[in-house]
């Protein structure tokens, strides 16, 4: 692939509204990703303990907080996926206080594997993964409230 051809591909992708393009041919593989879009900060930081009635409420964000920008054309073919909460409730790393965490940073996870527990209205829901990959960061704190669509884990996938 000539540098000018590579530039053409990147220009073409930049002009489109694709977020990511992976091209693989014999002897050549390229992955082009658009710079990460800013993620709107949740209008509140809920730091309330379940028992104490005095939560610390952050003032509502006037503008979305920007995520650090990822490079436009990473050489690596791996990407990081956000695992988001499917419900509002309290996030727990383990099935009960005396049991070990369901997943830790560095763990390889599979589709269907239990990642965490989210409790609401006294019901404990096991949250299963719908991707395969490696856990790179745990974004929510044990025993704290999480809302719908809040990022719980960052998982590196192929």
């Amino acid at each position, binding site marked *: 692939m000539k540098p000018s051809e590579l530039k053409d591909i990147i220009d073409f992708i930049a002009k489109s509204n694709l977020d990511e393009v992976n091209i693989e041919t014999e002897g050549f593989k390229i992955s082009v990703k658009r710079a990460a879009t800013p993620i*709107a900060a*949740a*209008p*509140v930081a*809920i730091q*309330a303990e*379940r028992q*104490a*009635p005095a*939560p610390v*409420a952050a003032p*509502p964000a*006037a503008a979305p907080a920007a995520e650090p920008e990822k490079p436009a054309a990473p050489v690596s073919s791996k990407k990081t996926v956000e695992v988001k909460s499917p*419900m*509002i*409730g*309290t996030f727990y790393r383990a099935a009960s206080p005396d049991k070990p965490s369901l997943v830790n940073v560095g763990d390889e996870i599979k589709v269907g594997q239990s990642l965490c527990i989210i409790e*609401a*209205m006294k*019901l404990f829901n096991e949250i299963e993964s719908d991707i395969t990959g490696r856990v790179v960061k745990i974004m929510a704190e044990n025993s704290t*409230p999480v*809302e*719908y*669509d*809040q990022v719980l884990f960052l998982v590196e996938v192929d």
Partner: protein
Amino acid sequence: MFKKILIANRGEIAMRIIRTCREMGIKTVGVYSTADKDSLHVRFADEAVCIGPPPGKDSYLSIPNIIAAAEITNADAIHPGYGFLSENAEFSKICQDYNIKFIGPTPEMIMSMGDKSTAKATMRKAGVPTVPGSDGLLESVKEGIRLANKIKYPVILKATAGGGGKGMRIVKNDFEFEKAWEDCKREASASFGNDGLYLEKFVEEPRHVEIQIVGDQYGKVCHLSERDCSIQRRHQKLVEESPSPIITDRLREKMGAAAIKGAKAIRYEGAGTIEFLVDKNGDFFFMEMNTRIQVEHPVTEEVTGFDLIKEQILVAAGVKISGRNYTPNSHAIECRINAEDPANGFRPSPGKITNLNLPGGHGVRVDTHIYSGYTIPPNYDSMVAKLIVSAPTREEAIVRMKRALMEFIIEGIKTTIPFHIRLMDDPGFRSGKFTTKYLEDFDFSGL
């Protein structure tokens, strides 16, 4: 008094409740679906939590999600607003079970008024005038004719399993009865597989006049007079006003007393509204009771000076009401501004608001959640603002409303503002003589 109230609603009513809570020093929790993450109530609430994806059933109508949100934010009360879960007896019950005060009536009160025939029977037993009619199904034409003469023509024969106007016939005299009976039975049988019929007095040229009541936890109920909501399109209210142009002091006393009797019969707690049909003779009949705060509550607030949301919160916190009734001290009109195209059958017009100018000045109030740059999501109802004006007389209120409507600029979407402007100029509306059928003959062209 409550420390923190979770508002289980969205849009302008969420803003309304936040405002009163702020004045009362009560912290607020807003909830939102992902479609509402840029909504104004999310920014104004002290805290806000995302409870689900856009569909109502997965967010604002989801009892587990709302309760979970209250749990994690330690809210000690929930205000349900109007619509959504506000008249859901199960939700009221679950709040009780979870020790969260539901700002509204108990599950039993909601259930007693939720079923139309139970509500009617309860009201009748309490001595509240209801639309006269048969007690259940009619056995024969003879029985029907006898009853029709008792309650006086015109009457309406209705299919018990009916709906959508099918299996219904208005009967004006004895001669028409038998044919109407046969037609109804045939239609009902064909459409619903059930030819059971009942009889009701046909209320001629009805106006929709409702009475605002407030009941405390100790059995006391008071009324704050009426609102006339006869300007409706397809049974949706578009304009409301207080006082009603046709209600005399005497009639207000009678209707107010009837509304209080009805509410006391179920020991009603909270703000509520009893809706009546008023015919051309000034006779009024119970239609239904709404066991929640209503969209048009600001009309009553402007003419009585009371903050009805505050009254709801006080009553829920166990404060006693004085029991005094209140009558309008001025005239107020509300126009509901919807994101709809009145020139094209009022079809919904969601989209981004590119330019906004709110009206102002003496006697002008706007309750809204929209702002310049806001995109109206297509997932919920189309009301974008309520414009309420008050003035010493009805004539001055109409002039003021027209003036305020002319200042109200909303660009980027179509709204019903042009319809309201035309209505304010309309001689029929200005005369005060109109019924719930008025808009059926209204000219909507060229708006």
